[in-house]
Protein backbone atom coordinates (compact mmCIF):
# COMPACT_ATOMS: atom_id res chain seq x y z
CA UNK A 1 0.00 0.00 0.00
CA UNK A 2 1.49 3.28 -0.96
CA UNK A 3 1.07 6.74 0.46
CA UNK A 4 -2.23 8.50 0.13
CA UNK A 5 -2.01 11.67 -1.88
CA UNK A 6 1.40 11.08 -3.34
CA UNK A 7 0.19 8.00 -5.16
CA UNK A 8 1.49 8.65 -8.61
CA UNK A 9 2.33 5.89 -11.00
CA UNK A 10 4.92 6.50 -13.62
CA UNK A 11 3.30 7.14 -16.93
CA UNK A 12 4.39 5.53 -20.16
CA UNK A 13 7.47 6.85 -21.93
CA UNK A 14 5.23 9.21 -23.86
CA UNK A 15 4.56 11.12 -20.64
CA UNK A 16 7.91 12.82 -20.73
CA UNK A 17 7.30 14.38 -24.10
CA UNK A 18 3.94 15.66 -22.94
CA UNK A 19 5.54 18.46 -20.98
CA UNK A 20 7.30 21.29 -22.75
CA UNK A 21 11.06 20.99 -22.47
CA UNK A 22 12.47 24.11 -20.89
CA UNK A 23 16.09 24.18 -21.94
CA UNK A 24 18.40 21.88 -23.85
CA UNK A 25 21.67 22.21 -21.92
CA UNK A 26 21.61 23.46 -18.35
CA UNK A 27 23.70 26.59 -17.70
CA UNK A 28 26.56 26.37 -15.18
CA UNK A 29 25.52 26.09 -11.55
CA UNK A 30 26.72 29.54 -10.50
CA UNK A 31 24.82 31.25 -13.27
CA UNK A 32 21.70 29.27 -12.45
CA UNK A 33 21.91 30.17 -8.76
CA UNK A 34 22.35 33.83 -9.57
CA UNK A 35 19.30 33.61 -11.80
CA UNK A 36 17.26 32.09 -8.99
CA UNK A 37 18.45 34.70 -6.52
CA UNK A 38 17.65 37.53 -8.91
CA UNK A 39 14.18 36.19 -9.59
CA UNK A 40 13.54 35.78 -5.87
CA UNK A 41 14.69 39.32 -5.24
CA UNK A 42 12.54 40.73 -8.02
CA UNK A 43 9.53 38.85 -6.65
CA UNK A 44 10.08 39.75 -2.99
CA UNK A 45 12.04 42.97 -3.37
CA UNK A 46 9.04 45.26 -2.89
CA UNK A 47 7.89 43.46 0.22
CA UNK A 48 11.33 43.46 1.80
CA UNK A 49 11.85 47.09 0.83
CA UNK A 50 8.57 48.20 2.38
CA UNK A 51 9.33 46.38 5.62
CA UNK A 52 12.76 47.96 5.80
CA UNK A 53 11.23 51.34 5.10
CA UNK A 54 8.75 50.87 7.94
CA UNK A 55 11.58 50.04 10.35
CA UNK A 56 13.59 53.04 9.22
CA UNK A 57 10.56 55.32 9.70
CA UNK A 58 9.98 53.83 13.15
CA UNK A 59 13.63 54.39 14.11
CA UNK A 60 13.60 57.95 12.78
CA UNK A 61 10.27 58.75 14.43
CA UNK A 62 11.33 57.49 17.83
CA UNK A 63 14.45 59.67 17.63
CA UNK A 64 12.80 62.77 16.19
CA UNK A 65 9.88 62.71 18.61
CA UNK A 66 12.06 61.40 21.45
CA UNK A 67 9.58 58.68 22.36
CA UNK A 68 10.52 57.28 25.78
CA UNK A 69 12.03 53.81 25.53
CA UNK A 70 9.75 52.40 28.25
CA UNK A 71 6.75 53.26 26.04
CA UNK A 72 8.00 52.33 22.60
CA UNK A 73 11.62 51.40 22.06
CA UNK A 74 13.14 51.94 18.64
CA UNK A 75 14.04 48.95 16.47
CA UNK A 76 17.76 49.40 17.14
CA UNK A 77 17.19 49.54 20.90
CA UNK A 78 15.21 46.30 20.70
CA UNK A 79 17.96 44.72 18.65
CA UNK A 80 20.60 45.88 21.12
CA UNK A 81 18.59 44.49 24.00
CA UNK A 82 18.29 41.14 22.28
CA UNK A 83 22.01 41.12 21.49
CA UNK A 84 23.01 42.01 25.05
CA UNK A 85 22.57 38.49 26.35
CA UNK A 86 21.89 36.36 23.31
CA UNK A 87 22.34 33.10 25.20
CA UNK A 88 19.50 33.96 27.61
CA UNK A 89 17.12 34.64 24.78
CA UNK A 90 18.32 31.52 22.96
CA UNK A 91 17.85 29.27 25.99
CA UNK A 92 14.30 30.44 26.63
CA UNK A 93 13.46 30.28 22.93
CA UNK A 94 14.62 26.71 22.79
CA UNK A 95 12.41 25.79 25.77
CA UNK A 96 9.33 27.35 24.19
CA UNK A 97 10.14 25.82 20.83
CA UNK A 98 10.26 22.37 22.39
CA UNK A 99 6.92 22.88 24.10
CA UNK A 100 5.32 24.18 20.92
CA UNK A 101 6.66 21.51 18.58
CA UNK A 102 5.97 18.73 21.08
CA UNK A 103 2.45 19.93 21.75
CA UNK A 104 1.74 20.45 18.08
CA UNK A 105 3.00 17.05 16.98
CA UNK A 106 0.98 15.34 19.70
CA UNK A 107 -2.07 17.40 18.74
CA UNK A 108 -1.69 16.34 15.11
CA UNK A 109 -1.10 12.72 16.04
CA UNK A 110 -4.29 12.66 18.12
CA UNK A 111 -6.55 15.05 16.20
CA UNK A 112 -6.16 13.73 12.66
CA UNK A 113 -7.04 10.10 13.49
CA UNK A 114 -9.79 11.33 15.82
CA UNK A 115 -11.31 13.48 13.07
CA UNK A 116 -11.23 10.49 10.73
CA UNK A 117 -12.85 8.20 13.29
CA UNK A 118 -15.63 10.72 13.85
CA UNK A 119 -16.54 10.46 10.17
CA UNK A 120 -16.81 6.71 10.28
CA UNK A 121 -18.76 6.37 13.51
CA UNK A 122 -22.02 8.20 14.08
CA UNK A 123 -22.03 7.14 17.71
CA UNK A 124 -18.52 8.40 18.30
CA UNK A 125 -19.40 11.65 16.60
CA UNK A 126 -22.42 12.18 18.83
CA UNK A 127 -20.36 11.24 21.84
CA UNK A 128 -17.18 13.18 21.23
CA UNK A 129 -18.14 16.16 19.09
CA UNK A 130 -20.24 18.04 21.66
CA UNK A 131 -17.64 17.63 24.39
CA UNK A 132 -15.00 18.75 21.95
CA UNK A 133 -16.94 21.91 21.26
CA UNK A 134 -17.62 22.49 24.95
CA UNK A 135 -13.94 21.98 25.69
CA UNK A 136 -12.96 24.49 23.05
CA UNK A 137 -15.29 27.05 24.63
CA UNK A 138 -13.20 27.01 27.82
CA UNK A 139 -10.52 29.70 27.82
CA UNK A 140 -7.30 27.74 27.89
CA UNK A 141 -5.87 30.03 30.61
CA UNK A 142 -8.43 28.53 32.93
CA UNK A 143 -6.94 25.09 32.33
CA UNK A 144 -3.36 26.07 33.00
CA UNK A 145 -3.49 25.84 36.82
CA UNK A 146 -5.11 22.41 36.64
CA UNK A 147 -2.53 21.20 34.16
CA UNK A 148 0.25 22.42 36.42
CA UNK A 149 -1.26 20.43 39.28
CA UNK A 150 -1.48 17.36 37.07
CA UNK A 151 1.74 17.60 35.08
CA UNK A 152 3.97 19.74 37.25
CA UNK A 153 5.87 22.96 36.86
CA UNK A 154 8.10 21.83 34.00
CA UNK A 155 7.89 21.20 30.29
CA UNK A 156 5.05 18.67 30.30
CA UNK A 157 2.27 20.97 31.47
CA UNK A 158 3.12 23.44 28.66
CA UNK A 159 3.29 20.70 26.07
CA UNK A 160 -0.18 19.58 27.15
CA UNK A 161 -1.51 23.13 27.07
CA UNK A 162 -0.07 23.63 23.58
CA UNK A 163 -1.67 20.33 22.61
CA UNK A 164 -5.17 21.17 23.81
CA UNK A 165 -4.99 24.64 22.29
CA UNK A 166 -3.89 23.36 18.89
CA UNK A 167 -6.11 20.28 18.70
CA UNK A 168 -9.51 21.81 18.00
CA UNK A 169 -8.95 23.33 14.54
CA UNK A 170 -7.13 20.19 13.44
CA UNK A 171 -10.01 17.91 14.46
CA UNK A 172 -12.64 20.19 12.96
CA UNK A 173 -10.80 20.60 9.67
CA UNK A 174 -10.15 16.88 9.43
CA UNK A 175 -13.85 16.20 9.94
CA UNK A 176 -14.79 18.78 7.31
CA UNK A 177 -12.18 17.51 4.88
CA UNK A 178 -13.16 13.88 5.28
CA UNK A 179 -16.69 14.74 4.23
CA UNK A 180 -15.66 16.59 1.08
CA UNK A 181 -15.28 13.71 -1.38
CA UNK A 182 -18.06 14.20 -3.95
CA UNK A 183 -20.79 11.58 -4.06
CA UNK A 184 -19.94 10.55 -7.63
CA UNK A 185 -16.37 9.86 -6.61
CA UNK A 186 -17.50 7.55 -3.84
CA UNK A 187 -19.99 5.83 -6.14
CA UNK A 188 -17.27 5.38 -8.71
CA UNK A 189 -15.00 3.75 -6.14
CA UNK A 190 -17.80 1.50 -4.99
CA UNK A 191 -18.68 0.57 -8.57
CA UNK A 192 -15.11 -0.73 -8.83
CA UNK A 193 -15.70 -2.74 -5.65
CA UNK A 194 -13.16 -0.70 -3.75
CA UNK A 195 -12.76 -1.73 -0.13
CA UNK A 196 -13.48 0.82 2.61
CA UNK A 197 -9.73 1.13 3.08
CA UNK A 198 -9.19 1.80 -0.63
CA UNK A 199 -11.95 4.40 -0.62
CA UNK A 200 -10.32 6.03 2.36
CA UNK A 201 -6.78 6.04 1.03
CA UNK A 202 -7.52 6.75 -2.65
CA UNK A 203 -10.44 9.17 -2.41
CA UNK A 204 -11.34 10.52 1.02
CA UNK A 205 -7.86 11.21 2.33
CA UNK A 206 -6.49 13.05 -0.73
CA UNK A 207 -9.62 15.21 -0.83
CA UNK A 208 -9.26 15.90 2.89
CA UNK A 209 -5.52 16.60 2.81
CA UNK A 210 -5.69 20.34 2.00
CA UNK A 211 -8.30 20.82 4.74
CA UNK A 212 -6.18 18.92 7.24
CA UNK A 213 -3.21 21.11 6.37
CA UNK A 214 -5.43 24.15 6.87
CA UNK A 215 -6.15 22.88 10.38
CA UNK A 216 -2.47 22.21 11.00
CA UNK A 217 -1.55 25.74 9.97
CA UNK A 218 -4.03 27.24 12.42
CA UNK A 219 -2.98 24.66 15.00
CA UNK A 220 0.73 25.47 14.92
CA UNK A 221 0.15 29.15 15.64
CA UNK A 222 -2.27 28.28 18.45
CA UNK A 223 0.30 25.90 19.91
CA UNK A 224 2.61 28.90 20.39
CA UNK A 225 -0.18 30.74 22.20
CA UNK A 226 -0.85 27.70 24.39
CA UNK A 227 2.78 27.25 25.37
CA UNK A 228 3.29 30.93 26.22
CA UNK A 229 0.07 31.05 28.26
CA UNK A 230 1.30 28.03 30.19
CA UNK A 231 4.62 29.73 30.86
CA UNK A 232 2.80 32.81 32.03
CA UNK A 233 0.90 30.86 34.65
CA UNK A 234 3.68 28.80 36.12
CA UNK A 235 7.22 28.26 34.97
CA UNK A 236 10.82 29.26 35.39
CA UNK A 237 11.83 29.18 31.75
CA UNK A 238 10.56 29.87 28.27
CA UNK A 239 9.71 33.05 26.39
CA UNK A 240 6.48 33.55 28.37
CA UNK A 241 8.50 33.48 31.57
CA UNK A 242 11.06 35.88 30.10
CA UNK A 243 8.20 38.17 29.16
CA UNK A 244 7.01 38.24 32.77
CA UNK A 245 10.51 38.93 34.05
CA UNK A 246 11.02 41.76 31.55
CA UNK A 247 7.66 43.16 32.55
CA UNK A 248 8.56 43.11 36.25
CA UNK A 249 11.83 44.88 35.50
CA UNK A 250 10.05 47.43 33.29
CA UNK A 251 12.51 46.33 30.60
CA UNK A 252 10.41 47.35 27.62
CA UNK A 253 13.10 46.72 24.99
CA UNK A 254 13.46 43.15 26.25
CA UNK A 255 9.68 42.76 26.20
CA UNK A 256 9.67 43.80 22.59
CA UNK A 257 12.61 41.56 21.78
CA UNK A 258 10.70 38.56 23.17
CA UNK A 259 7.58 39.51 21.23
CA UNK A 260 9.64 39.71 18.04
CA UNK A 261 11.21 36.32 18.70
CA UNK A 262 7.74 34.83 19.29
CA UNK A 263 6.45 36.32 16.08
CA UNK A 264 9.41 35.04 14.11
CA UNK A 265 9.10 31.59 15.69
CA UNK A 266 5.38 31.35 14.90
CA UNK A 267 5.97 32.43 11.33
CA UNK A 268 8.81 30.01 10.78
CA UNK A 269 6.72 27.15 12.16
CA UNK A 270 3.74 28.18 10.05
CA UNK A 271 5.80 28.20 6.88
CA UNK A 272 7.37 24.90 7.88
CA UNK A 273 3.89 23.36 7.87
CA UNK A 274 3.23 24.99 4.53
CA UNK A 275 6.49 23.57 3.17
CA UNK A 276 5.48 20.12 4.38
CA UNK A 277 2.21 20.58 2.52
CA UNK A 278 4.04 21.52 -0.65
CA UNK A 279 6.27 18.47 -0.36
CA UNK A 280 3.58 15.96 0.56
CA UNK A 281 0.71 17.01 -1.68
CA UNK A 282 0.68 16.72 -5.46
CA UNK A 283 0.40 19.99 -7.32
CA UNK A 284 -3.40 20.16 -7.83
CA UNK A 285 -4.04 19.86 -4.10
CA UNK A 286 -1.69 22.61 -3.02
CA UNK A 287 -2.92 25.87 -1.60
CA UNK A 288 -1.39 28.07 -4.28
CA UNK A 289 -3.18 26.07 -6.95
CA UNK A 290 -6.57 27.07 -5.63
CA UNK A 291 -6.27 30.78 -6.04
CA UNK A 292 -9.15 32.81 -7.31
CA UNK A 293 -7.47 33.95 -10.50
CA UNK A 294 -6.11 30.97 -12.38
CA UNK A 295 -3.88 33.10 -14.56
CA UNK A 296 -1.77 34.12 -11.61
CA UNK A 297 0.21 30.91 -11.29
CA UNK A 298 1.21 30.54 -14.89
Amino acid at each position, binding site marked *: MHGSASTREQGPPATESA*RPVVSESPPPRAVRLRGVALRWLRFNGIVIGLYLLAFVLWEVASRVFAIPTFILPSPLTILASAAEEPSVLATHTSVTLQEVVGGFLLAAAISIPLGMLLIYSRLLERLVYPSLVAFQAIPKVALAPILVVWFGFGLTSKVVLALVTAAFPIVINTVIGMGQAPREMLY*LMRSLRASPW*QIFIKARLPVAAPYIFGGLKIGITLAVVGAVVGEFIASNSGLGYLLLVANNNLDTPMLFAVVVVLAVMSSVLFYAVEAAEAILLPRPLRRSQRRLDPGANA
Partner: protein
Amino acid sequence: MSANDTLVTDPPAAAVRAEEVSMVFPAPDGAELRALADVSLDLPPGAFCGLVGPSGCGKSTFLMLIAGLYRPTTGRITIDEEQVVRPWDALGVVFQRDALLEWRTVWDNVLLPIEVKRLDKKKYRDRATRLLELVGLTGFEGFYPGELSGGMRQRVAICRSLIHEPRLLLMDEPFAAVDALTREKLNFDLLRLTAESQTGRGTTVVFVTHSIEEAVLLSDQILVMSPRPGKILRLIGNDLPKPRTLATRSEPRFHALVDDIRSAFHSMGLV
Protein backbone atom coordinates in the same frame (compact mmCIF):
# COMPACT_ATOMS: atom_id res chain seq x y z
CA MET B 1 -9.77 -24.23 -34.77
CA SER B 2 -8.80 -20.80 -35.98
CA ALA B 3 -7.11 -18.16 -33.88
CA ASN B 4 -10.37 -16.28 -33.66
CA ASP B 5 -11.99 -19.00 -31.64
CA THR B 6 -9.80 -18.12 -28.67
CA LEU B 7 -11.81 -14.91 -28.34
CA VAL B 8 -14.97 -16.89 -27.82
CA THR B 9 -13.56 -18.52 -24.70
CA ASP B 10 -13.52 -15.12 -23.03
CA PRO B 11 -16.62 -14.46 -20.96
CA PRO B 12 -19.20 -12.81 -23.17
CA ALA B 13 -20.90 -9.50 -22.54
CA ALA B 14 -23.37 -9.27 -19.72
CA ALA B 15 -27.04 -10.17 -20.07
CA VAL B 16 -29.06 -7.73 -17.99
CA ARG B 17 -32.57 -8.42 -16.76
CA ALA B 18 -34.82 -6.27 -14.66
CA GLU B 19 -37.91 -7.93 -13.23
CA GLU B 20 -40.66 -5.54 -12.13
CA VAL B 21 -38.21 -3.27 -10.42
CA SER B 22 -39.60 -0.46 -8.29
CA MET B 23 -37.74 2.14 -6.32
CA VAL B 24 -39.23 4.28 -3.59
CA PHE B 25 -37.25 7.04 -1.91
CA PRO B 26 -38.22 8.72 1.33
CA ALA B 27 -39.25 12.27 0.46
CA PRO B 28 -38.23 15.19 2.68
CA ASP B 29 -41.82 15.71 3.88
CA GLY B 30 -41.94 12.17 5.23
CA ALA B 31 -43.97 10.94 2.30
CA GLU B 32 -42.70 8.45 -0.22
CA LEU B 33 -41.32 9.31 -3.60
CA ARG B 34 -41.85 6.66 -6.20
CA ALA B 35 -39.01 6.96 -8.68
CA LEU B 36 -39.47 3.74 -10.65
CA ALA B 37 -42.57 1.63 -11.05
CA ASP B 38 -42.42 -1.98 -12.20
CA VAL B 39 -39.68 -1.65 -14.75
CA SER B 40 -38.92 -4.83 -16.62
CA LEU B 41 -36.21 -5.20 -19.20
CA ASP B 42 -34.30 -7.92 -20.93
CA LEU B 43 -31.04 -6.90 -22.52
CA PRO B 44 -29.15 -9.50 -24.56
CA PRO B 45 -25.37 -9.63 -24.25
CA GLY B 46 -23.64 -7.00 -26.34
CA ALA B 47 -26.68 -4.76 -26.74
CA PHE B 48 -26.19 -1.01 -26.84
CA CYS B 49 -29.26 0.29 -25.11
CA GLY B 50 -30.20 3.96 -25.17
CA LEU B 51 -32.39 5.13 -22.33
CA VAL B 52 -34.35 8.31 -22.95
CA GLY B 53 -36.96 9.95 -20.80
CA PRO B 54 -37.94 13.25 -19.28
CA SER B 55 -35.81 14.69 -16.54
CA GLY B 56 -36.54 13.20 -13.12
CA CYS B 57 -38.20 10.07 -14.48
CA GLY B 58 -35.75 7.76 -12.76
CA LYS B 59 -33.12 7.08 -15.43
CA SER B 60 -30.20 7.63 -13.09
CA THR B 61 -31.94 5.63 -10.41
CA PHE B 62 -32.34 2.73 -12.81
CA LEU B 63 -28.68 2.88 -13.70
CA MET B 64 -27.68 2.96 -10.04
CA LEU B 65 -29.82 -0.12 -9.49
CA ILE B 66 -28.14 -2.01 -12.33
CA ALA B 67 -24.79 -0.87 -10.98
CA GLY B 68 -25.62 -2.41 -7.64
CA LEU B 69 -25.17 0.94 -5.92
CA TYR B 70 -28.85 1.11 -4.90
CA ARG B 71 -31.08 -1.75 -3.85
CA PRO B 72 -34.54 -1.91 -5.44
CA THR B 73 -37.52 -1.53 -3.15
CA THR B 74 -39.23 -4.41 -4.93
CA GLY B 75 -38.35 -6.59 -7.88
CA ARG B 76 -34.92 -7.74 -8.83
CA ILE B 77 -32.14 -7.16 -11.29
CA THR B 78 -29.93 -9.92 -12.58
CA ILE B 79 -26.74 -9.88 -14.57
CA ASP B 80 -25.99 -13.18 -16.26
CA GLU B 81 -28.84 -14.73 -14.27
CA GLU B 82 -27.28 -13.70 -10.99
CA GLN B 83 -29.08 -11.26 -8.74
CA VAL B 84 -27.32 -7.95 -8.30
CA VAL B 85 -26.63 -7.30 -4.64
CA ARG B 86 -23.43 -5.31 -5.05
CA PRO B 87 -21.52 -3.86 -8.00
CA TRP B 88 -20.75 -6.49 -10.56
CA ASP B 89 -17.11 -7.30 -11.10
CA ALA B 90 -16.73 -6.49 -14.80
CA LEU B 91 -18.60 -3.21 -14.57
CA GLY B 92 -17.70 0.18 -15.97
CA VAL B 93 -19.57 3.34 -15.00
CA VAL B 94 -19.46 6.87 -16.38
CA PHE B 95 -21.34 9.52 -14.44
CA GLN B 96 -22.67 12.81 -15.68
CA ARG B 97 -19.97 14.56 -13.67
CA ASP B 98 -16.68 13.00 -14.61
CA ALA B 99 -15.59 12.18 -11.04
CA LEU B 100 -11.94 12.35 -12.01
CA LEU B 101 -9.46 12.37 -9.14
CA GLU B 102 -7.90 15.82 -9.44
CA TRP B 103 -4.62 14.81 -7.79
CA ARG B 104 -3.95 12.03 -10.24
CA THR B 105 -2.64 12.53 -13.72
CA VAL B 106 -4.69 11.47 -16.73
CA TRP B 107 -2.65 8.29 -16.87
CA ASP B 108 -3.20 7.44 -13.21
CA ASN B 109 -6.89 8.22 -13.48
CA VAL B 110 -7.28 5.83 -16.38
CA LEU B 111 -5.45 3.09 -14.49
CA LEU B 112 -7.44 3.57 -11.29
CA PRO B 113 -9.73 0.54 -11.87
CA ILE B 114 -6.68 -1.68 -12.39
CA GLU B 115 -5.23 -0.42 -9.14
CA VAL B 116 -8.44 -0.86 -7.18
CA LYS B 117 -8.99 -4.32 -8.56
CA ARG B 118 -5.34 -5.19 -7.85
CA LEU B 119 -4.72 -6.31 -11.42
CA ASP B 120 -1.30 -6.27 -12.98
CA LYS B 121 -0.76 -2.71 -14.19
CA LYS B 122 1.92 -3.71 -16.66
CA LYS B 123 -0.60 -5.76 -18.59
CA TYR B 124 -2.90 -2.78 -19.03
CA ARG B 125 -0.37 -0.15 -20.05
CA ASP B 126 -0.80 -0.83 -23.75
CA ARG B 127 -4.55 -0.78 -23.42
CA ALA B 128 -4.42 2.56 -21.60
CA THR B 129 -2.19 4.00 -24.29
CA ARG B 130 -4.51 2.67 -26.97
CA LEU B 131 -7.69 3.98 -25.33
CA LEU B 132 -6.19 7.43 -24.87
CA GLU B 133 -5.05 7.37 -28.47
CA LEU B 134 -8.57 6.47 -29.66
CA VAL B 135 -10.02 9.54 -27.96
CA GLY B 136 -7.19 11.80 -29.09
CA LEU B 137 -5.53 12.28 -25.73
CA THR B 138 -2.08 11.02 -26.65
CA GLY B 139 0.45 13.38 -25.11
CA PHE B 140 -1.80 14.35 -22.23
CA GLU B 141 -0.93 11.36 -20.02
CA GLY B 142 1.01 13.51 -17.57
CA PHE B 143 -1.59 16.27 -17.31
CA TYR B 144 -3.79 16.77 -14.30
CA PRO B 145 -7.57 16.90 -14.87
CA GLY B 146 -7.54 20.56 -13.85
CA GLU B 147 -5.46 21.25 -16.92
CA LEU B 148 -8.02 19.75 -19.35
CA SER B 149 -11.22 21.00 -20.95
CA GLY B 150 -14.59 19.56 -20.00
CA GLY B 151 -14.75 17.38 -23.09
CA MET B 152 -11.23 16.06 -22.53
CA ARG B 153 -12.06 15.24 -18.93
CA GLN B 154 -15.11 13.28 -19.96
CA ARG B 155 -12.99 11.35 -22.45
CA VAL B 156 -10.58 10.45 -19.66
CA ALA B 157 -13.55 9.23 -17.62
CA ILE B 158 -14.65 7.08 -20.55
CA CYS B 159 -11.19 5.59 -20.96
CA ARG B 160 -11.18 4.87 -17.24
CA SER B 161 -14.52 3.09 -17.51
CA LEU B 162 -13.16 0.84 -20.26
CA ILE B 163 -9.65 0.06 -19.06
CA HIS B 164 -10.53 -3.12 -17.18
CA GLU B 165 -12.44 -4.56 -20.15
CA PRO B 166 -15.86 -4.27 -18.56
CA ARG B 167 -18.59 -6.50 -19.93
CA LEU B 168 -21.23 -4.07 -18.81
CA LEU B 169 -20.88 -0.34 -19.30
CA LEU B 170 -23.32 2.08 -17.67
CA MET B 171 -23.24 5.68 -18.81
CA ASP B 172 -25.38 8.37 -17.20
CA GLU B 173 -25.70 11.34 -19.54
CA PRO B 174 -21.96 11.31 -20.01
CA PHE B 175 -21.97 14.13 -22.53
CA ALA B 176 -24.58 16.39 -20.99
CA ALA B 177 -22.01 18.87 -19.77
CA VAL B 178 -20.03 19.32 -22.99
CA ASP B 179 -20.74 21.58 -25.91
CA ALA B 180 -22.59 20.36 -29.00
CA LEU B 181 -19.54 20.01 -31.24
CA THR B 182 -17.52 18.11 -28.68
CA ARG B 183 -20.54 15.99 -27.98
CA GLU B 184 -20.74 14.93 -31.59
CA LYS B 185 -17.07 14.01 -31.56
CA LEU B 186 -17.48 12.09 -28.32
CA ASN B 187 -20.40 10.15 -29.78
CA PHE B 188 -18.22 8.81 -32.53
CA ASP B 189 -15.37 8.22 -30.08
CA LEU B 190 -17.71 6.09 -28.05
CA LEU B 191 -18.88 4.10 -31.06
CA ARG B 192 -15.28 3.43 -31.97
CA LEU B 193 -14.36 2.48 -28.41
CA THR B 194 -17.20 0.06 -27.90
CA ALA B 195 -16.71 -1.44 -31.34
CA GLU B 196 -13.09 -1.95 -30.40
CA SER B 197 -14.05 -3.55 -27.11
CA GLN B 198 -16.40 -5.87 -28.89
CA THR B 199 -13.57 -7.41 -30.85
CA GLY B 200 -12.51 -8.68 -27.44
CA ARG B 201 -15.06 -9.78 -24.90
CA GLY B 202 -17.94 -7.62 -25.97
CA THR B 203 -19.70 -5.08 -23.85
CA THR B 204 -23.33 -4.50 -23.04
CA VAL B 205 -23.97 -0.78 -22.78
CA VAL B 206 -26.79 1.13 -21.10
CA PHE B 207 -26.55 4.73 -22.13
CA VAL B 208 -28.76 7.37 -20.53
CA THR B 209 -29.31 10.54 -22.50
CA HIS B 210 -31.90 13.20 -22.93
CA SER B 211 -30.91 13.66 -26.53
CA ILE B 212 -33.10 11.57 -28.83
CA GLU B 213 -30.65 12.00 -31.71
CA GLU B 214 -27.81 10.74 -29.58
CA ALA B 215 -29.80 7.69 -28.54
CA VAL B 216 -30.71 6.87 -32.13
CA LEU B 217 -27.17 7.36 -33.37
CA LEU B 218 -25.59 5.12 -30.75
CA SER B 219 -27.94 2.35 -29.76
CA ASP B 220 -29.43 -0.92 -30.99
CA GLN B 221 -32.37 -0.59 -28.65
CA ILE B 222 -34.03 2.51 -27.37
CA LEU B 223 -36.00 2.52 -24.16
CA VAL B 224 -38.43 5.36 -23.79
CA MET B 225 -39.40 6.05 -20.20
CA SER B 226 -42.49 7.81 -18.88
CA PRO B 227 -42.43 10.68 -16.39
CA ARG B 228 -42.13 9.76 -12.73
CA PRO B 229 -42.74 7.17 -11.55
CA GLY B 230 -40.66 5.90 -14.44
CA LYS B 231 -42.07 3.08 -16.48
CA ILE B 232 -40.82 1.74 -19.74
CA LEU B 233 -43.15 3.20 -22.26
CA ARG B 234 -41.70 1.79 -25.42
CA LEU B 235 -38.87 -0.39 -26.55
CA ILE B 236 -37.74 0.54 -30.02
CA GLY B 237 -35.39 -1.65 -32.01
CA ASN B 238 -32.90 0.41 -33.96
CA ASP B 239 -31.98 -1.33 -37.20
CA LEU B 240 -29.81 1.44 -38.60
CA PRO B 241 -26.83 -0.18 -40.30
CA LYS B 242 -23.46 -0.31 -38.57
CA PRO B 243 -20.93 1.10 -38.37
CA ARG B 244 -22.73 4.35 -37.73
CA THR B 245 -21.00 7.34 -39.22
CA LEU B 246 -21.65 10.97 -39.86
CA ALA B 247 -23.67 9.83 -42.89
CA THR B 248 -26.02 7.90 -40.63
CA ARG B 249 -27.50 11.14 -39.45
CA SER B 250 -28.67 12.08 -42.92
CA GLU B 251 -30.44 8.79 -43.60
CA PRO B 252 -34.21 8.96 -43.79
CA ARG B 253 -34.46 6.00 -41.42
CA PHE B 254 -32.52 7.99 -38.79
CA HIS B 255 -35.05 10.80 -38.93
CA ALA B 256 -37.97 8.40 -38.96
CA LEU B 257 -36.72 6.89 -35.71
CA VAL B 258 -36.10 10.27 -34.13
CA ASP B 259 -39.60 11.39 -35.11
CA ASP B 260 -41.05 8.18 -33.79
CA ILE B 261 -39.50 8.72 -30.36
CA ARG B 262 -40.34 12.38 -30.36
CA SER B 263 -43.98 11.56 -30.97
CA ALA B 264 -43.85 9.15 -28.05
CA PHE B 265 -42.78 12.08 -25.89
CA HIS B 266 -45.49 14.12 -27.52
CA SER B 267 -48.11 11.62 -26.46
CA MET B 268 -46.91 12.09 -22.87
CA GLY B 269 -47.50 15.79 -23.32
CA LEU B 270 -43.83 16.55 -22.88
CA VAL B 271 -42.79 18.26 -26.08
